[in-house]
């Protein structure tokens, strides 16, 4: 079958199933960028999922009836984290191909649907914590470091750094985030395809939690350093101002730790500002 390319077998993987061809992987990869393009409350990412899978479906199913049934299967509800969706697309492509090779039975279709529906929430759990909950704030922390570097090296408080530093900061943010995001999207397809039904077990071998913990630790330290730098550089011109700023930040961090929402903190701070304004007029 033209989807197979034995020269690109990865010996590190447990499965003996040959990987996707580079052309097919590239086509699906580009389509994964539209994974959420028709996100809707009724069936969430179903259209995006079918769109990603279409090159495989149209290749493996030869008759119109089979193709229609396959399309209808994937127009059912599906939702996961968009980057991690690649794993689900890859694994489902493999299962569809197996079904086409071995013949469609009720059991095969049940397995296919079961694997796909189990993968959605499992991948979302990993992806939400890794991308939205960790990598995004981490990249913002890196950006703050670059900008902080600019303010430190190019002058003191009143000196404005060169405009290029703004670009450098956003460049670092985008590269740090997207390099990993694109890698996951690309490798997710080939690994998902190779692993097929055993994807659940194989995913456990990737140390997601260790990556998240490490990134968080680094980000936390970066946050404390950058925050201290910011408070000292921009607000700590006198000892009193610095101690005030540190106390308020400490209080806010404590409130956040007690699960206070950011908008509540905004309300509290503006309320406090109002009272301060009334009593210091």
């Amino acid at each position: 079958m033209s989807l197979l390319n034995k020269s690109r077998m990865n010996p590190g993987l447990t499965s003996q199933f040959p990987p996707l061809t580079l052309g097919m992987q590239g086509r699906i990869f580009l389509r994964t960028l539209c994974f959420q393009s028709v996100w809707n409350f009724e069936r969430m990412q179903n259209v995006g999922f079918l769109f990603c899978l279409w090159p495989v479906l149209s290749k493996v199913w030869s008759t119109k009836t089979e193709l229609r049934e396959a399309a209808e299967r994937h127009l059912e509800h599906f939702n996961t984290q968009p980057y991690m969706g690649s794993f689900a697309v890859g694994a489902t492509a493999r299962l569809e191909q197996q079904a086409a090779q071995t013949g469609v039975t009720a059991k095969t279709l049940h397995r296919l649907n079961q694997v796909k529906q189990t993968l959605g929430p499992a991948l979302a759990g990993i992806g939400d914590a890794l991308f939205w909950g960790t990598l995004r704030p981490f990249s913002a922390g890196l950006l703050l470091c670059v900008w902080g570097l600019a303010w430190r090296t190019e002058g003191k408080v009143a000196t404005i750094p060169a405009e290029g530093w703004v670009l450098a900061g956003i460049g670092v943010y985008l590269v740090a985030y997207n390099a990993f995001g694109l890698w996951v999207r690309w490798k997710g397809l080939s690994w998902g395809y190779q692993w097929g039904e055993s994807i659940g077990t194989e995913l456990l071998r990737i140390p997601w939690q260790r990556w998240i913990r490490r990134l968080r630790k680094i980000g936390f330290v970066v946050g404390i350093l950058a925050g201290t730098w910011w408070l000292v550089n921009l607000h700590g011109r006198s000892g009193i101002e610095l101690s005030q700023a540190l106390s308020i930040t400490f209080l806010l961090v404590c409130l956040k730790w007690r699960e206070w929402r950011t908008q509540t903190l905004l309300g509290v701070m503006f309320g406090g500002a109002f009272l301060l304004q009334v009593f210091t007029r």
Partner: protein
Amino acid sequence: MTPLPEAALCAGVALADLDTTLWGQWMISRPVILGSILGFFLADSPEALWQAAWMGFWMELLLLDILPIGGAVPPNGALAIGGTLLLHARGVPIELCFLLGLGLGRGFIPLETKLRQVRARFLRSLEILSAKDVRRLDGGLKRIIFSSMGLQFLATFFFLWGSIVLASPWSLWLWKVSPDLLKGTLQRGFETIPWIGLATFLYAMRPR
């Protein structure tokens, strides 16, 4: 700023906003990135550019722990920073712009919810097309994706442009007639936003 470049920038923000959910998720629509890019178009000095960049950064931190999980519709960060900077370009003080921008991002939630409901209607046409001639389904999928993005773009563009055109005269007037107590409160409250942002960042990065 003349209406045409302003409309073009609103269109740029609406285009970048597609990155939030519908296409790519490259993070171009994040406030810190979009704020800095808008700064290059709007700022007339390095100070103004850095102000736009920092506004984007603080906005980013305030929205950092709101995650687009499941069916949750988070506030629109692109609209929030776009609204803030475009209103400021119309002369509205930054303290007020920042709050209005946050309100704009939050105010888009009902419209975004509606858009997600409307998109479900596309499913019917896909099912019909699949039953009729499944070989043409790929073209149908592409058309629906394009329509969905077009709809989102238009909704975001008109929401942002309309809000700026409507809100700026009112905000300028309000600022003019506001008592000093209110202005002082906004200014002092605004000064605490970086601290709130920092607390949010540390919370987001807390070791678990």
